[in-house]
C-alpha cells in the first residue's frame, strides 16, 4: 500500500503549478532556440523571453529593462551583492546584513567585504526574528558601506522585516538596499521599498533553475564576471523556465488574497494545536506580521532527523533547521540568531491548495511521533 504524500515543505521549491508546467512544455516547442540568434526560431524564443521579463517586471512594479534573469536564486543574490560592492568600491567595502539573511547573502557579504578590505556588519534580531531596525539604520549610515541587505520576510520562520523604514534610511544615507523577497513574492505584496529585489520562482510554484534580480535604474554596479552579451548573468537562462516562472507568478498573484486567507488559517490552527497537544514545544516567529504559509517549531529533547524521518514514513514531507539534518552539522543560523531551540526542529511551508484535512491529520499524528521519540530517548520525565 502506498501512503498518500502530503508536501508541507514548499519553501524555496514548491510543487510546480499546473499552469507553469503547461507553459514550460509549450515553450519547449516554441522557444527551444537560442534567443541570441537572428533567425525566425531565435526571434520567437527571444519574444517569449522578453514577454516573460515584461510580465515579471509588471508583477513587481518595475520596468522590463530593470529585470535580469539568473540561473538560480543563489546566483541572483551573489551577483547582487558582488556587483554593487564592486560598483561602489570607492565608497567602501562594508556590507550591512541582518543576522537572519539567507546563507547566500551572508556568504556573498563575507566574500566581497574580504575582497575590498571591508567587513560584514551583522545586525542582530529579536526572539521573533525581526531585525533591530534602529541598529540596522545606524549601521548603514556609517561611512564605508557599499550596500545593505535585508530580506522582505524570513523563509524559515516567516517573520516580516521592517523594509520600509530601513529603505527610507538607506535612501537618506545613499546606500543601496538589496531586499531578498525569495520567500515573499507570490505570497504577500512585496511593496516598493528596495533598490535591488531578488525573487525565487521555485518558491511561488515556478520551475527550478531560475532566479530573478530586479535593479532600479541608478544603482551603481560593475560586472564581476568575464564579459558576455548577458552582462550580469553570462550565458543567459532557459527560455521555457523563464516563461513558466512568469506564468506561475501571474497565477500566484491572481490567487494571492485567497491563498493568504486559507493558508493563514491553517497555520493559525497548527499554532494552536501543536503547543496544546505536545509538551515542551518552542514555536518560532511572531503570531502576527508573518508570511501566511510558514511555521517553524522545535520539540525539546527530540532529534530533528528522527522527527523528519518519522513524518516522512507517515506520508508528510517537512523541513528542519536542526544541525543533525544539515550536512555541516551546524544548526540553522536563523534559529540560533533568534535564540530558539535548534534541535527537534520542524519547518513547514504550506503549498497553495493545501487541504485542511491534511493539516488536521498532520496535527493528529505529530504528538504520537514526538512521544515515541522521547520515550526511546528516555526523556519523558525530564
Amino acid at each position: 500500500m502506498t501512503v498518500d504524500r502530503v508536501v508541507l515543505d514548499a519553501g524555496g521549491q514548491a510543487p510546480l503549478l499546473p499552469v507553469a508546467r503547461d507553459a514550460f512544455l509549450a515553450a519547449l516547442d516554441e522557444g527551444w532556440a537560442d534567443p541570441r540568434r537572428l533567425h525566425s526560431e531565435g526571434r520567437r524564443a527571444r519574444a517569449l523571453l522578453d514577454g516573460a521579463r515584461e510580465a515579471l517586471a509588471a508583477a513587481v512594479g518595475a520596468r522590463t529593462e530593470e529585470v535580469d534573469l539568473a540561473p538560480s536564486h543563489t546566483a541572483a543574490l551573489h551577483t547582487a551583492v558582488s556587483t554593487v560592492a564592486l560598483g561602489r568600491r570607492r565608497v567602501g567595502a562594508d556590507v550591512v546584513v541582518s543576522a537572519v539573511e539567507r546563507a547566500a547573502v551572508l556568504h556573498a557579504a563575507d566574500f566581497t567585504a574580504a575582497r575590498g578590505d571591508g567587513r560584514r556588519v551583522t545586525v542582530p534580531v529579536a526572539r521573533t526574528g525581526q531585525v533591530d531596525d534602529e541598529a540596522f539604520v545606524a549601521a548603514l549610515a556609517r561611512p564605508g558601506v557599499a550596500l545593505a541587505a535585508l530580506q522582505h520576510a524570513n523563509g524559515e520562520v516567516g517573520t516580516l522585516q521592517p523594509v520600509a523604514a530601513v529603505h527610507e534610511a538607506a535612501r537618506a544615507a545613499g546606500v543601496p538596499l538589496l531586499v531578498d523577497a525569495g520567500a515573499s513574492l507570490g505570497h504577500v505584496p512585496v511593496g516598493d521599498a528596495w533598490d535591488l529585489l531578488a525573487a525565487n520562482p521555485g518558491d511561488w510554484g515556478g520551475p527550478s533553475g531560475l532566479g530573478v534580480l530586479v535593479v532600479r535604474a541608478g544603482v551603481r554596479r560593475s560586472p564581476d564576471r568575464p564579459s558576455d552579451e548577458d552582462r550580469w548573468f553570462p550565458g543567459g537562462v532557459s527560455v521555457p523556465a523563464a516563461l513558466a516562472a512568469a506564468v506561475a507568478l501571474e497565477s500566484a498573484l491572481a490567487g494571492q488574497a485567497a491563498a493568504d486567507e486559507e493558508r493563514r488559517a491553517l497555520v493559525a490552527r497548527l499554532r494552536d494545536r501543536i503547543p496544546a497537544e505536545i509538551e515542551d514545544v518552542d514555536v518560532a516567529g511572531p503570531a502576527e506580521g508573518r508570511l501566511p504559509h510558514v511555521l517553524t517549531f522545535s520539540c525539546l529533547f527530540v532529534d530533528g532527523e528522527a522527527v523528519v524521518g518519522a513524518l516522512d514514513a507517515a506520508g508528510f514531507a517537512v523541513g528542519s533547521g536542526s544541525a543533525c539534518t544539515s550536512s555541516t552539522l551546524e544548526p540553522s543560523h536563523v534559529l540560533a540568531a533568534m535564540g530558539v531551540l535548534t534541535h527537534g526542529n520542524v519547518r513547514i511551508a504550506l503549498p497553495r491548495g493545501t487541504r485542511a484535512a491534511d493539516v488536521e491529520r498532520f496535527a493528529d499524528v505529530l504528538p504520537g511521533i514526538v512521544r515515541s521519540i522521547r520515550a526511546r530517548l528516555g526523556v519523558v520525565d525530564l
Partner: protein
Amino acid sequence: MTGEVTPGGAGVPDEVVVDARGMLCPAPVIALAKAARSLPEGARVTVLATDPAAAVDVPAWARMRGHRVLETTEDGEHLVLTVLLGPAKAR
C-alpha cells in the same frame, strides 16, 4: 564523553559539571536536564559541550524551564555554559 556528572568545586555539593563533549544534539541538553532533575533550586550546573548547537539549545532549554544561564565561555575546543536552576515546579 560519557555525560558523566561530577561534583564541581570541592566541598560545594550544589555545583556539578556535566561533560557532554563529543555528544551531538540533543544529547548535551538531555544530559544537562538529567543532572538538573535531582538538584535543588539555586544549584549551579556547568555543561561542557563540543556540539555548536549547545550554545543556543542550553539557553533555550533554560528559558523553557525557568532556569538562567549565568555564563557562556569557550575553553579551547569546547563550550562551557553555567546554568542557575530555577524552582522545581517550573521544570
